C-alpha cells in the first residue's frame, strides 16, 4: 500500500498530543471522565499513527531517514524544522507511543493526591510531544528545544503529585538537567560556528566536522559539553544522584515515564549526535565513558544492596542498567550500539513495569519499606508472579528482553572499535560481568524479601491488599507480552536498528586502519579520524588528525 504518511506523519504524531491538550483546556476540570477519555483517545491515536509509521517504514533501508520533513524554521539562525525517522529512533519512538496510553489507563482510577486529572493528563500529553519530538528531530536547535520541553511537565509532575520530599527531588531533577543542557547548547553552538555549517542539521554538521578539520582540542571540549548534557540525563555515574530522589518521589506514572523514556533521551543523544558528529573526540572519550559506565554498574548494584525502599532500589538498578547501555555505546562498534538500543528498549519496558508494580504495591501497603513487606505471593499471587517475571527479566534471564540488552553489551566490549584500547575494554567486560552477578543478587534478594514467606502481621488480614485489578491488567499485559516477545525474538529490534547504527558510525571505526593502504583510508575519510598507516595497532588512539 502506498505510504500515506510520508511528509506529514511525524508532524502529526508529534503534535497530536497538543491538540488533545487544547481540547482538554476547553473542558472544565470537574468533568473528569471526559478528560480521561480525551487523553486516552489522543494517546491511542498517536499510537495508531505509530503503528502506521511502522507498517510503512521501509525495512530495507533502515539507515535512511524516512518520512522526512525539511522546512525553514528560524531563518536568522538557519535552524530548520528537519524531522525524520530511521532505524535508530524508530524503536524509541514506538516505545514512547506504547508507554503513554498504558500510563493513562493505569492512572484511570487512582490518580495520586491531589488528584486533578485534568492537569495531570495534560502534563503527560505535553511530555509525549516533547519525547517524540526529541527522537525525530534532526536539527540541533530543534533537538534542544524538544529535549527541554520535557523538563517542565516532569518537574511539575514530581513537584505536585510526588511524595513527601517532592520539592527537593523535583528541584534537583530540574537543576541537574538544565545545567547539562545549558552546556550542551553552548557545545552545539560552538560546533556550528567552528564547522561553518550552513544549517544546524546533524548530517550537515557531521560532514563539515570532517571537511573543515575542527581542531582536536576543540572537538574534545565540545564533546565534553555534550557529554555533560547527555550524561546527566542518562544518568551516568557520578551525575546520577538526582535519579534516586526523582524516582522515589515521583508519582508512579511519572517514574514509569522517567524510566521508560526520559533516561533514553540521554543515551539517544550520544548515539545520534555526540558520536556521529565528533568521531575523533568519541574515540578519545570512549575509554572514560566506558570506565564511568562500569563504575556505574558496580556502584548501582552496591547501592541496590543497601536500599531499604523498593522504589529507590529500582532507581539504583536503573543506574546499573544504564551503565550497560553506556558500555555498549562506549565500544563504538555496530554490535555494541545495537546492544545499547536494545538495552534502552528492554530497560524501558522492564523498569517501567517494575515501577508500575512498585506503585501498585504502594497503593495496597501504603509503604515500600522492604523490611515491612513480605508474602506478596500469598496475598496477591498474580501480582507476585508478575513481579517475579519482571525481576527475572531485569537481571537478564535469557528468554526475556533484559538479556538481549546486557549480554551483547558485555560481549561487544571484548572487541571494541578500531583505535580503542582493547585490554582496558576487556577489563571493563569482566567488571560488567561481575555486575550481572551482583544484579542477580540484589534482585533475587528483593524478590525473596517482598514476595516470599508469609505476610507480615500488620498486613495479614488487610482487605486493601487485592490481586491485580482490571485496569492494571490492561496496562500491564501489553508490556509483559512485549518483554517476552523481544526476549524470544530479539530480531524484532535488531533488524530495525542495525542498518541505522551501521550508517551512523564512522567507517574507520569498523575497520583496522593499520591494514589499509593510504588510498583506501583516504576514500573512507579515515585520515581525519586516525593517523593512517602508523601501524601502531590499538594503542595509537591519541594520534592527531590532519
Amino acid at each position: 500500500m502506498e505510504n500515506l504518511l510520508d511528509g506529514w506523519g511525524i508532524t502529526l504524531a508529534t503534535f497530536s498530543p497538543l491538540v488533545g491538550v487544547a481540547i482538554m483546556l476547553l473542558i472544565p476540570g470537574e468533568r473528569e471522565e471526559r478528560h480521561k477519555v480525551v487523553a486516552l483517545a489522543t494517546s491511542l491515536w498517536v499510537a495508531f499513527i505509530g503503528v502506521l509509521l511502522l507498517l510503512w517504514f521501509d525495512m530495507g533501508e533502515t539507515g535512511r531517514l524516512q518520512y522526512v520533513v525539511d522546512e525553514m524554521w528560524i531563518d536568522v539562525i538557519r535552524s530548520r524544522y528537519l524531522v525524520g525517522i530511521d532505524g535508530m529512533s524508530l524503536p524509541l519512538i514506538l516505545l514512547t507511543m506504547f508507554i503513554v496510553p498504558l500510563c493513562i489507563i493505569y492512572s484511570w482510577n487512582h490518580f495520586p493526591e491531589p488528584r486533578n486529572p485534568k492537569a495531570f493528563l495534560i502534563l503527560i500529553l505535553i511530555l509525549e510531544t516533547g519525547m517524540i519530538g526529541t527522537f525525530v528531530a534532526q536539527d540541533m536547535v530543534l533537538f534542544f528545544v524538544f529535549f527541554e520541553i520535557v523538563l517542565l511537565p516532569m518537574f511539575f509532575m514530581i513537584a505536585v503529585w510526588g511524595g513527601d520530599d517532592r520539592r527537593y527531588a523535583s528541584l534537583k531533577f530540574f537543576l541537574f538537567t538544565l545545567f547539562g543542557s545549558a552546556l550542551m547548547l553552548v557545545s552545539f553552538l560552538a560546533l556550528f560556528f567552528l564547522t561553518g555549517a550552513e544549517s544546524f542539521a546533524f548530517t550537515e554538521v557531521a560532514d563539515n566536522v570532517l571537511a573543515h578539520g575542527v581542531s582536536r582540542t576543540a572537538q574534545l571540549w565540545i564533546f565534553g559539553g555534550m557529554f555533560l548534557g547527555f550524561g546527566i540525563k542518562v544518568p551516568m555515574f557520578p551525575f546520577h544522584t538526582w535519579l534516586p530522589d526523582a524516582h522515589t518521589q515521583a508519582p508512579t506514572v511519572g517514574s514509569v515515564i522517567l524510566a521508560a523514556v526520559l533516561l533514553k533521551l540521554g543515551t539517544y543523544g550520544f548515539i545520534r549526535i555526540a558520536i556521529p558528529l565528533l568521531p575523533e573526540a568519541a574515540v578519545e572519550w570512549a575509554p572514560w565513558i566506558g570506565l564511568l559506565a562500569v563504575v556505574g554498574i558496580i556502584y548501582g548494584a552496591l547501592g541496590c544492596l543497601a536500599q531499604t525502599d523498593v522504589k529507590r532500589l529500582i532507581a539504583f538498578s536503573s543506574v546499573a542498567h544504564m551503565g550497560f547501555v553506556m558500555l555498549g555505546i562506549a565500544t563504538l562498534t555496530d554490535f555494541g550500539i545495537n546492544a545499547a538500543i536494545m538495552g534502552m528498549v528492554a530497560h524501558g519496558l522492564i523498569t517501567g513495569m517494575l515501577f508500575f508494580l512498585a506503585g501498585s504495591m504502594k497503593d495496597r501497603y501504603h509503604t515500600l519499606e522492604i523490611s515491612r513487606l513480605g508474602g506478596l505471593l500469598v496475598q496477591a499471587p498474580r501480582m507476585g508472579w508478575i513481579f517475579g517475571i519482571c525481576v527475572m527479566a531485569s537481571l537478564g534471564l535469557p528468554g526475556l528482553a533484559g538479556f538481549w540488552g546486557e549480554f551483547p553489551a558485555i560481549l561487544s566490549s571484548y572487541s571494541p572499535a578500531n583505535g580503542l584500547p582493547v585490554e582496558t575494554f576487556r577489563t571493563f567486560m569482566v567488571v560488567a560481568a561481575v555486575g550481572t552477578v551482583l544484579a542477580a543478587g540484589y534482585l533475587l534478594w528483593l524478590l525473596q524479601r517482598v514476595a516470599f514467606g508469609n505476610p507480615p502481621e500488620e498486613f495479614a488480614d488487610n482487605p486493601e491488599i487485592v490481586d491485580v485489578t482490571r485496569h492494571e491488567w490492561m496496562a500491564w499485559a501489553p508490556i509483559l507480552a512485549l518483554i517476552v516477545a523481544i526476549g524470544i525474538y530479539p530480531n524484532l529490534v535488531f533488524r530495525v536498528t542495525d542498518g541505522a547504527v551501521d550508517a551512523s558510525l564512522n567507517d574507520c571505526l569498523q575497520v583496522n586502519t593499520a591494514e589499509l593502504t593510504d588510498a583506501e583510508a583516504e576514500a573512507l575519510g579515515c585520515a581525519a579520524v586516525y593517523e593512517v598507516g602508523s601501524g601502531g595497532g590499538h594503542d595509537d588512539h591519541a594520534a592527531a588528525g590532519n
Partner: protein
Amino acid sequence: MGSQLLLLAFERPALDWHALAPEIVLLSVGGLVTLIDIVFLERARPITAAVAGLGLLATAIPLLTLALDGSDRVMFGGAYVVDEFALVMKAIFILAGYVVILLSTNYVAEGEYWENEYYGLLLASLMGMVMMASSRDLISLFVALELLSIPAYLMVAWRKRDIRSTEAGLKYYLMGVFASAVMLYGMSLLFGVSGSTLLTDINSVVTAGGASVSVVTLGIVFVVAGFGFKVSAAPFHTWAPDVYQGAPTPVTAFLSVASKAAGFVALLALVFVGFYGRPEVWEPLVWTLAAVSMTVGNLIALRQTNIVRMMAYSGVAQTGFMIAPLAVAGHSTALGDQALSATVTYLAIYAAMNLGAFAVIISLARRTGSAEMSSFAGAFRYAPAMTVAMTIFLGSLAGIPPLGGWFAKFEVFRVLTSSGDTWGYALAVVAAVNAVIALYYYASVLLRMWADEAPDEGVADVALTPSLLSALVICGGVTLVFGVLPQVVARFTDVSLLALGG
C-alpha cells in the same frame, strides 16, 4: 559674530513631519489627558486610562507607516535619526507602555491615587523613551534621559501615604541624579576631546586615537557607568530592590521593562555609534558588567522572600544577559550587527515576559494583599489559570523552550560563541552556569505556587479585571509566539546601527 548667532537662532531647521509624527501624537495625547483633567475634574477619572491607552495605540499608527516606508530619516544634522532600530525600540516602548496602562487601571483607581496626573506623567516618561530611541547626540540623549526619568521619580513615590513608597522615590531620585552627574561629567570629557556632541563625530575622534587616550577612556567609562545605573547593571544596581519594592507595582513593571530598555537604547547608540572604534575600552568594561550583573543578581535573588525584590534582582541578572553580546561586539562589524540584534531581541522578549510576570503578581496580590512569596503558596489550588500564566512567564525568564525566553538566551549564546575567542566562550560558560542558578529561584516560586498547600484564609475572592486579563493575554501570547516561531521577532530585530555610525 553676534548677528550670525542671531541668524542661526532664527533659522528654522528642516523638519520631517512624518518622522516626528509618533512624538507629536504622543505629545498631543499627553496634552489631551491633562486638558480633560482640567476641564472635567473628577468626572473624568473613569475615562483617563482609556484615553491614555487608546492614545498610545494611535501613536503606533505613524510608527507603522514609517516602518512601511522604510527609509532612514536624519534630522538636525544627525542628532535625531529615525531608522529601523529607532522604530523597533519605539514600538517596544509604546507596547510596553500600553501594557503598563492596562496594569495600572485598577491599581491606581482602587488605591484612590491621583489618576490624571499619573497617566500624564506616564505618557511624558514614554515621550522621553521614544525620543531616546532616535537620539544620536549627547545633548538629545541627555534631554531624553531627563524627560523619561523625572516623571518616573514622581511615579515611584505615588503611594504617598506609604513610607516605603516615599523612601523609594527619594532613593530613586538621589541615585538617578547622581548617575546623571557622573554621566554628564563623562560627556563633558568626550565633548572636550572631540569638540562636538554628535556621536558620529565623537566616534571619528575616538577612533583616530590622536586625542588623549586616558581622557577618552575616562569619558567612555563614566558615560557607560551612568547608563549602567539606568539599566540596573551590577555594581550600579543597589537602588533597584528598594525602589521596586516601594513603588506601586505597575510602576515597578514600567521601570523594570521600559526604563531599562531606554537605558539600553542609549547604551547601544553610544557603543555602536559613538565608541565603536574603541572596543578595547568598552569591551572589557561590558564583559565585567555582564559577568558581575548575572552572578551578583542571581546569587542575591536566591535569598529573597519578597517576590518583587526577587524580580528586581532577577532583573539585574537579566541585564547581564542583555549586555553580554556587547562584550564581543567590537570584534567585527558583522559580529557587531549580530550583537545588536541579539540585545534588541532580548529586550523585546524580556518586555513581554517580565510585564507578564508583573501582571500575574499584581493579579495575585489583589487576592492575597501581599507580595511576600509565602502568600503565593498553593495558588494552583485556587487560581490555576494564573499559576499556569506565571509558569509561562517565569519559565520564559529562565529560558526554557518553547517559551520566548529561550530564543533570547539562545541569541546571546550564539553571538558569544560565534566570536570564537576565549573571552566570548568564557562569558558563554558564565552565562550557562547563571542560567541554572536563575532557574533555582524561578522554580522555587513555581514550586510554592504548584506544590504547597493553600492557606485556609486570607485569600479574598477578587475577580480578574478585564484590563489585567488583556495584559496577561497579550504578554502570554507574545511570549509563546516568540518562543515557537522566533522568526516573528527576529525579523523585526534584525537591525543595524553601524551602517550609519561606523
